[in-house]
């Protein structure tokens, strides 16, 4: 053990109460930082998981109309000016098979499913509701969404076997008082077709659960009178974070608009990010308090130990040794505080994750959603380290600046 560390340890134990206060503040700061980051990130991650499970990582939809204006110089010259005049889109995808085949060439694409979408009126025995029908190829759809896992009543196999079967959102089914096996009518384009509820799904996203009815693609084509083409292709990716880059490449290659989930859910994601940052700032106040407590404790020790500092300096201890002795003290408190803080943070995160909290609307959960992420602990420790060490530098430097002659003279007189 270095002499400076040995001295730091003794100084620490001499001011037990003050040190315990500093330690408690550090533990609280780190623990709360971990907890708040775990909960805010937890909800954000759960939201992302939900939206990826319903609408996929990306949608390839409307065709881009070439609007490039060119002027070519006459007289056999090769001179040419090109100017793009903004993008225009032609609604829908005319050749979904070609698009899906092209999508398969992208290494990050794990699945692609065509969807035909249209507005319908759902007629049940008691009331009617406006909705949107989604014509899907079930097997393809299951590869790009969590639809199979979102079934809360009935099963997917029944839908697979029933040509006139439908998957209905829970909110819509409740409003229409429909359950599995019930029949209803979808009305669109002036025609009415009868379907049976094969299963009821629940994504937790209210806008989806109250609006969407999934039917087989062939049924949707008949209902919407669209014998060819689809509204969009839902794409799933192996690495969801690369969606924006992939979307740009796809748009360039496929000449169809491609919207990554980050763009699609921009407003919600911004809200979650703002929430996470604001809670981090709030909790940083606790670590700031830890820093202030450390400052206070060390400042007290400097005042009380001026004589000891003079002795050490008279024995050949340098200014940097004195600084080190005080920084060691801060470092010891910080290390113990960070360690205990992480344990407290992890335990409270575990406790909070079991707290009942029924939420539905943007996602569905019955308990607090938390995220177990090592970076939260790294961030918490880094924040606490910054606060505590900055706060400790001032008294440490003050101690180092003390002139031994002044101290000895002051004490002797």
């Amino acid at each position, binding site marked *: 053990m270095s*002499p400076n560390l*040995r*001295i730091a340890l*003794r*100084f620490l*134990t*001499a001011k037990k109460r003050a040190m315990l206060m500093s330690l408690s503040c550090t533990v609280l700061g780190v623990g709360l930082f971990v907890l708040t980051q775990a909960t805010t990130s937890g909800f954000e991650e759960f939201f992302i998981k939900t939206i990826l499970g319903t609408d996929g990582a990306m949608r390839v939809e409307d065709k881009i109309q070439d609007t490039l204006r060119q002027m070519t110089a006459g007289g056999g010259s090769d001179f040419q000016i090109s100017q793009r005049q903004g993008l225009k889109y032609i609604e829908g995808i005319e050749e979904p098979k070609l698009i899906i085949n092209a999508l398969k060439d992208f290494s990050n694409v794990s699945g692609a499913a065509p969807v035909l979408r249209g507005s319908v009126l759902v007629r049940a025995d008691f009331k009617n509701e406006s909705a949107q029908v989604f014509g899907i190829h079930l097997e393809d759809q299951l590869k790009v969404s969590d639809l199979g896992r979102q079934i809360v009543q009935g099963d997917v196999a029944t839908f697979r076997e029933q040509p006139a079967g439908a998957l209905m959102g829970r909110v819509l089914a409740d409003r229409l008082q429909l359950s599995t096996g019930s029949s209803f009518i979808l009305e669109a384009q002036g025609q009415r077709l009868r379907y049976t509820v094969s299963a009821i799904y629940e994504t937790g996203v209210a806008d989806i659960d109250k609006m969407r009815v999934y039917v087989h693609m062939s049924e949707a084509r008949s209902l919407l009178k669209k014998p060819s083409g689809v509204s969009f292709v839902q794409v799933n990716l192996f690495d969801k974070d690369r969606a924006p880059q992939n979307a740009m490449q796809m748009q360039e290659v496929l000449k169809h608009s491609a919207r990554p989930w980050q763009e699609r859910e921009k407003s919600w994601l911004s809200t979650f990010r703002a929430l996470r940052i604001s809670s981090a700032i709030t909790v940083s106040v606790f670590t700031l308090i830890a820093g202030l407590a450390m400052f206070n404790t060390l400042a007290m020790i400097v005042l009380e130990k001026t*004589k*000891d500092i*003079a*002795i*050490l*300096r*008279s*024995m*050949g*201890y*340098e*200014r940097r*040794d004195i600084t080190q002795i005080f920084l060691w003290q801060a470092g010891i408190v910080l290390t113990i505080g960070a360690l205990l803080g992480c344990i407290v943070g992890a335990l409270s995160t575990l406790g909070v994750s079991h707290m009942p909290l029924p939420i539905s609307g943007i996602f569905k959960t019955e308990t607090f959603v938390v995220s177990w992420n090592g970076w939260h602990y790294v961030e918490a420790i880094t924040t606490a380290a910054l606060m505590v060490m900055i706060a400790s530098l001032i008294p440490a430097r003050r101690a180092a600046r003390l*002139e*031994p*002659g*002044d101290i*000895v*003279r002051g*004490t*002797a007189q």
Partner: protein
Amino acid sequence: MAFINELALRCNGLHRYLGQDDARVHVLKGVSFAARRGEVYAIVGPSGCGKSTLLYLLGLLDRPDGGEIEINGQLMSTSDDAARTAARGEHIGFVFQFHFLMMEFSALDNVMMPMRKLGRLSQQEMVERAHSLLSSVGLGDKTHRLGTQLSGGEQQRVAVARALANQPSIILADEPTGNLDVKNSGLVFDLLTRLAKENGQAVILVTHNPEIAARCDFTRPMRDGLFA
């Protein structure tokens, strides 16, 4: 002893002002002094004559406003803080009036403290030397007692042992017996001078005690910032 009578410390024309503005006092007015190894010097004089100020300057704890200080032939008055600190650790041992032990540490730890910083000896050698020094000041059986568990006389004896720890060439003692009873005063003084002479160290002590001063090799009376 090879170093006996070698010049350990020399100062020439030392000036020192203390206080600021209207309260500024010219404490030392061109003091010159030299000390040889193996000899004991007493600086005496009334309170406020500048004895302690001179001692702190000689011990490189303070900086002079004018004049020169040489330690073992090396000019130190103009050197930087690092060089002065290193010189203190290697060449100078201090004994203060109020013992100045580090109370959270044992007697053994206090004596080992300068050795740990100098880093010349192994842990085992440091422990052995600290034990030996504490035994020589009569505290061989109290090595593990904390500073708070020692009497005033015992604390000062630990301070003497600590001052000798790195075998410095100069021992500076500021009223080493000023806070002790007669019996302990004699004991500490005898220890200091005996061990210093045995090791060939120059001992410079500031004292108000005429008996102690009379027992030193040289006595230098001071008055109004100058040697009389």
